[in-house]
């Protein structure tokens, strides 16, 4: 199963920091579209990381069941 991780303001909305989903043929965009709708995340400025690397949301990237997808709100270190 692919792991979806939520941080900060995103985790506050999803009310969890992690969930696991079974991926069949969905691309990254498919999965994100589903999650954004499910949690009503459209208004938030969110960056996406695939296996700990930032990726473009538009990319038609394939997702494997070993992948980790992270939904990251704006960074606030320092």
């Amino acid at each position: 199963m692919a792991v979806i991780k939520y941080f900060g303001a995103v985790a506050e909305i999803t009310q969890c920091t992690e969930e696991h989903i079974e991926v069949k043929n969905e691309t990254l965009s498919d999965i994100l579209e589903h999650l954004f709708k499910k949690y009503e995340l459209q208004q938030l400025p969110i960056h996406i990381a695939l296996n700990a690397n930032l990726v473009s949301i538009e990319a038609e990237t394939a997702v494997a069941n070993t992948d980790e997808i992270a939904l990251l709100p704006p960074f606030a270190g320092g």
Partner: protein
Amino acid sequence: MKKVFIDGPISPEFISESIRKHQTKTDIGAHNIFLGQVRADVVNNKTVAAIDFTCYEAMANEILTDIREKAFKTFNLTCMHIYHSLGTVKAGEICFFVFVSAKHSSEVYEATQYLVDIVKKKVPLFGKEIFEDETHQWKTNK
């Protein structure tokens, strides 16, 4: 990978201990230290009492490794340390500590500023600003 994340505030003693450890390195002539301190900002009449920091550590560690490598290539440094708090840091306490050392003073300033700016911009850290009335808002770096 060097340890970067610290539970809770970074104490003045931790900082002095870090300084002391560099006193055996007698090729160092200049240290530059940046400290980020949590401000009691007032937003809509509510005062920030603390920030609760969380982090995507797997990604943060990769990015910090790149940042360190790039900084050592770009600047003529003897030592470089970056520390950031996770968890709750109260107003007035220190959450961010960048420590750069070189032979000459001219080498350290730009490196410190580079490290502070790139950590703020690239490391996936999240900050929940908790007001005195226990409501909160999410901190965003401009």
